[in-house]
């Protein structure tokens, strides 16, 4: 009798331990800029990690194991970012790191992750992150180059020859400016004005006046809110008639709100997230986009931004890599990521390879124009 009971206890204990072992969570890390100047990037990303952690666990986890995403805020500060990555590697023993949100911060930590041999999937777009390729470093946003190509295609078709640049003097603007300078001269346009503004500037009439004086056919403004909204308003104030291209950095409803009536007619490249309902039904991204928008809106009471999309794609890609590898080990995840083909995400359709750690191309972008305070996809 006693022996019987003991046997049950032991068997149950063994099974229990086994189950507990099987249920040991896979720990991922994320570093976002949820506060500080780049909070507009990091906050939707942080929300997205929360959302996807719940979603994946509700659906039974990855390979039967629940997942945990440890999210640290680097406050848009490079020191805190380095600390956060060290902490993820050292204390949380994560198998992969999502982020950081900012290009500068990413460049500061790529070596740290590589030295620890843990894959880092950045949500920042600078080309330096993935070119030259570091075996352990990937990124998910569309490259600035692809946005630039999309804009210049449109400009060429419209017959503009003399272009002007107005870029913000932060990491985002600097990266865009470099790419555009290169593309503009390579594609036979002439760059007649190359102006910058500070991230917190509130008046760009001087730069715009100078640009008009230089005889530009079209203006490309590269920045994130609120600067471009000021540019749009000043353009209306000055009554400028030349077309204004913006970057994908303002592809959010917030820009339309801030620019108000001045947003009308502005052209920009954007991911499909801004106009999900205008994406044709058969498109591979359609289902992903609809699911993300629905889930995010339900959970947080507002629509997601394309920056959140970068986080979404990072998690989905790593999840796909874990499934493919069958084991949640850093090296296996890295190898599997490099072999992912045609994975539809929010920002585009990813195909990573050994010499391409971005995985997107210019087709990730649509050219849209703002009409009637909403996005209109251009053919």
């Amino acid at each position, binding site marked *: 009798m006693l022996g019987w009971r003991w046997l049950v206890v032991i068997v149950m204990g063994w099974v229990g331990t086994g189950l507990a072992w099987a249920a040991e969570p896979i720990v991922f890390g994320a570093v976002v800029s949820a506060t500080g100047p780049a909070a507009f990037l990091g906050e939707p990303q942080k929300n997205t990690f929360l959302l996807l952690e719940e979603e994946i666990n509700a659906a039974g986890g990855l390979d039967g194991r629940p997942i945990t995403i440890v999210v640290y805020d680097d406050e848009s500060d490079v020191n805190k970012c380095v600390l956060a990555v060290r902490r993820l590697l050292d204390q949380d023993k994560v198998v992969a790191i999502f982020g950081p949100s900012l290009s500068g911060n990413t460049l500061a930590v790529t070596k740290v992750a590589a030295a620890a041999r843990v894959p880092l999937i950045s949500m920042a777009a600078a080309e330096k992150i993935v070119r030259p390729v570091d075996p352990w470093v990937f990124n998910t946003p569309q490259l600035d180059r692809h946005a630039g190509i999309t804009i210049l295609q449109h400009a060429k078709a419209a017959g503009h020859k003399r272009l002007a640049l107005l870029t913000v003097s932060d990491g985002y603007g600097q990266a865009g400016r470099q790419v555009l300078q290169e593309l503009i001269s390579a594609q036979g346009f002439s760059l007649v004005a190359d102006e910058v503004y500070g991230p917190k500037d509130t*008046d760009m009439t*001087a730069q715009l*006046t100078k640009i008009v004086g230089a005889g530009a056919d079209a203006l490309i403004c590269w920045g994130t809110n609120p600067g471009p909204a000021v540019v749009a308003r000043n353009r209306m104030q000055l009554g400028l008639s030349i077309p204004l291209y913006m970057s994908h950095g303002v592809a959010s409803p*917030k820009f339309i709100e801030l620019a108000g009536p001045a947003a009308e007619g502005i052209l920009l490249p954007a991911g499909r997230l801004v106009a999900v309902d205008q994406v044709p039904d058969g498109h591979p991204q359609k289902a992903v986009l609809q699911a993300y928008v629905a889930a995010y809106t339900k959970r947080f009471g507002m629509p997601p931004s394309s920056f959140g999309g970068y986080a979404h794609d990072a998690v989905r890609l790593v999840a796909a890599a874990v499934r493919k590898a069958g084991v949640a080990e850093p090296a296996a995840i890295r190898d599997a990521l490099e072999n992912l083909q045609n994975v539809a995400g929010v920002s585009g359709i990813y195909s990573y390879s050994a010499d391409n750690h971005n995985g997107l191309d210019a087709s990730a972008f649509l050219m849209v124009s703002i009409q009637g305070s909403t996005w209109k996809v251009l053919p």
Partner: protein
Amino acid sequence: MAPLIQYLMGGLTLGSTYGLTALGFTLIWSATGIVNFAQGEFVMLGGMLAVAGVAVGLSQLWAILLAVAGTTVVGAMVERTMIRPLGRRPVLDVVIVTLGVAMVVRGLVMLFLGKETHVLEPFSGHVPLRVFGAAIMAQGVWVLATAAAVVGGLKVFFSATLEGKAMQACAHDPVAASLVGISVPRMTLLSFALSALLGAVGGVLITPITMTSYDVGILLGLKGFAACVLGGLGSPLGAMAGGILLGVVESLTAGYLSSAYKDAVALVVLLAVLFFRPTGLFGPRDVTRV
């Protein structure tokens, strides 16, 4: 369109936003000799409270009135709870306290009103005015006109009213002022409340042009402070003139030299004034040696 006139107009609009912030600085300085590093946050608070008011469904006018009133109360509370208890502690301590107040106000606004950027509708629509072939936002005229009115008002206040004279006496020599029966604490309170009020008025006026978010106070405070130093601390007219000068220098630099270094050029002008004419361009002429 003549570029020069447009640069000047742009500089004028921009500079008047700096000048409005600078007026609050100068008021507290005049009354207490304190540099109030929280002045930029008063401006931010005015704008953000007005935005919050509109967001909960108030009409813009009511939102603005409540925002100005609310900020004034905050200014008075800051003086009552943070500045006054320090008594006769060194000015350095008081200045550090204003830095702390700035951080707390910024932190609270971020926590309760969020990190997003917001905008208010311009008071007189989006259609720009044409002046000498240059375009100027109608809102810019509002800012300029209000600033001029405030400068005039302060001039009258300081030179023609008892309160105003008392306030200046306090800064000059608080011991002597209290000996002749002026209530120094009351004057300090009044100056903080008035500065907060001026800041909030500035905040709601410039928000339709510059937009606002929890962290705009830092830069506004710095520019306002720079404007004060440029024009001469303690003089309302100097503060306004310093602000406009700063804005015009920035605008002209962006137009003719380099948009990348426009702030740097403006600050170099500031340092030059500080070194060679420490009382500011419009301050008193005779410099007491130290």
